[in-house]
């Protein structure tokens, strides 16, 4: 057990850093540090172009097998790439859902034909993906999906109808993957299918959801007899739950290290302000800054333990399950800390009508962190049941 990187890894780090510093210039200079969570609506065109630049440099999908255009990069190298990317101010990746969710799902569950059809577009940065899981009546309860998929024999196509919600980047995406009910007789997680659907068709409508920040990060996506060819279901009808659960596992990976680098820049900014406005001398603020720093370090070492475990036995360990709860709670606290460090000025906007400063966005948007992707309450259930082996609650009607 040791924390030092090998000389080869350090060389790889230098290579990444060099490429980024050479390429994050010109048209891409303006998007440095932009487009992260809470800021997804900005510089979308530039960030799309950036995906393709990245791909040209061979820096998309580096963990994928070489056969599919990846570098088969080791965990250490993926950690390094993500760290350097964040350190260089690489913009929020519009392609991340394709690269970290759709791609691994295709690699694990897709047919050869599906891989050939979709992986190259993801790898090249051309095709953007979004995810269609949550529904208005099934926020935390994925098994309660009501979107229907009916197979139309004459046209040999699936027809999808229903509504998804909390879909980020929907208005920019080329494709969406959707869980829909293939067997209306089946309840809960049985009878679901996992579909790959083109966004650019009459049956798909996107409506942005305005948030408390005044901006729109998430969307509603309406499916009204949207079509999907027979080849665009992953696995069999009825396999949707299995595929979706596998996919949830991919959400926690090396990208967490990059996320933490973004958190570090936020914390650094807060520390800078605290030093300049004197709140760094306030004992209560000092405690909280120290706590934030400790929490972020703990997050990093939790991730490294988790990733080392992955390399070890290919299964995510106990530490993986605590990750979402940990970072979302930490980040929410950071948002409040930012306000208290800013002091009275925390209220003042950059401009009217409602242009928030970066830390104000952080403060408000982090309230979403403990909700989307499974609320803190759901996360605690998962930890208790899967990591600690505690029983599920009885299902039944409340009285």
């Amino acid at each position, binding site marked *: 057990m040791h924390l030092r990187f090998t000389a080869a890894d350090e060389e790889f780090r230098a290579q990444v850093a060099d490429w980024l510093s050479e390429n994050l210039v010109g048209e891409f200079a303006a998007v440095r540090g932009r487009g992260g969570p809470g800021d997804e609506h900005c510089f979308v065109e530039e960030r799309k172009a950036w995906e393709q630049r990245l791909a040209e440099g061979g820096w998309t999908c580096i963990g994928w097998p070489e056969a599919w255009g990846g570098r088969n990069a080791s965990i250490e190298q993926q950690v390094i790439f993500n760290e350097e990317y964040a350190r260089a101010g690489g913009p929020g990746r519009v392609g991340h859902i394709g690269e970290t969710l759709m791609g691994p799902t295709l690699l694990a569950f897709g047919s050869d034909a599906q891989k050939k059809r979709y992986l190259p577009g993801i790898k090249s940065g051309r095709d953007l993906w979004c995810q269609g899981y949550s529904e208005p009546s099934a*926020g935390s309860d994925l098994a309660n999906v009501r979107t229907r998929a009916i197979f139309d024999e004459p046209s040999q196509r699936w027809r999808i109808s229903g509504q998804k919600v909390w879909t980020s980047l929907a208005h920019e995406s080329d494709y969406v993957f959707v869980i829909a009910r293939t067997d209306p007789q089946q309840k809960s997680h049985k009878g679901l299918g996992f579909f790959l659907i083109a966004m650019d068709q009459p049956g798909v409508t996107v409506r942005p959801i305005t948030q408390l920040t005044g901006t729109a990060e998430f969307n509603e996506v309406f499916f009204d007899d949207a079509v999907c060819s027979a080849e665009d279901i992953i696995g069999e009808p009825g396999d949707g739950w299995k595929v979706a659960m596998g996919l949830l596992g991919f959400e926690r990976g090396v990208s967490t290290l990059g996320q933490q680098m973004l958190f570090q820049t936020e914390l650094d900014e807060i520390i800078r302000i605290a030093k300049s406005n004197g709140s760094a001398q306030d004992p209560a603020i000092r405690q909280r800054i120290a706590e934030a720093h400790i929490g972020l370090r703990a997050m990093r070492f939790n991730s490294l333990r988790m990733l080392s475990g992955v390399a070890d036995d290919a299964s995510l360990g106990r530490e993986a399950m605590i990750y979402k709860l940990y970072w979302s709670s930490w980040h929410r606290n950071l948002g409040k800390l930012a306000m208290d460090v800013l002091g009275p000025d925390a209220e003042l906007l950059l401009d009217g009508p409602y242009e928030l400063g970066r830390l104000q966005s952080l403060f408000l948007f982090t309230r979403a962190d403990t909700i989307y992707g499974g609320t803190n309450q759901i996360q605690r259930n998962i930890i208790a049941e899967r990591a600690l082996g505690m029983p599920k609650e009885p299902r039944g009607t409340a009285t």
Partner: protein
Amino acid sequence: MDFRFTDEQRMLADTASAFMQEVADSSATRQAMISDAGYCAESWQRLCEQMYWQGILVPEACGGLDLGFVEQIIVLEAMGERLHCSPLFSSVIATLALRSVPESAIAFSLLERICAGDIVSLAHTEARPDWGSEGVGVTASIGESGWTLDGCARFIPFGHSANTFLIVARHAEGLGLFVADNNQPGVHCQRVQTMDQTRAMADLTLTNVSVAREYCLSTDFEGTLDAVLDAARILLAADQVGGARKSLELSVDYVQERVQFGRSIASFQAIKHKAADMMVKAESARSLLYAAGCIADEWLSGYSDERALCEAAAMTSAAAGEAYFFTAGSGIQLHGGVGITEEYDIQLYFKRARSTEAYLGNPTAQREVVARLLLDGDS
């Protein structure tokens, strides 16, 4: 000792609640908060004419109702429940300041004008380094023709709509309280854009502003300022307690309706226990608030000293600030996804919770005040 509302107080609470339901529903609040003034002039007029809440603490001689501090709290709690956008808070603070300076014709007439619905705002701080006398950023110098004021004051609630300012300024020997109208030469007041849009704020800049001698209401205002700010903290806590209770109510209503995993999510222990914790905090802050109201009443009538007021204010402010932030923040969590949408009101409560928690000193600062009273000196 009788820790209940009197019948009259109960009636006032019912009236306040009904009036707020009428003038301050969600759409009215949303309309008012994005308007230029940040409040609805018509509602303000109705409040002044039909409710006469601006006169609650004004002496009868000046046309006021001469009621108690508890009555003032009752209406502010009802307003806080509805996130009402209103300059009333400003006028009440001004009333307290005017009642605390030596009697004078100017003070008398300002109290009359407050009763008539004029907005009078206390402008006292730059909030650097703190919200109290250390933060005073206006200086006053005396000359042949009277006083001259220069400097800035910030975070004046609804100051951009004020007719008149009560300006705290530092002179050679201490702090004074000065009167200036908004249209006087050198007086410039402008609304600033704030994260919480329901409590509009303004900055005041004074450039070489002449104030006649009789418009200096006090030259020894430092101790009085502390007491007025303590009273203001209790009034603000009323807003916070109202908002905290409503945040809880909205959230419980929402979770009762929302069905997941085949049952109302209100039946999940994690949700119920969070709601229980919210209630404990909100109701405890409310108990402290009413006690602080009683103590402020005693202070107004001379039975209690500034130390008792200060302790009550610091305790109440700390508890109410935390309770509001906790209930509104937890309220967002209980709302789940919709909690962070612009469409639902809980996020407006959350923003007001933050702005009020920070205003006039956050809970940490208030607890330090309590600690000073308990631990330092001979006390």
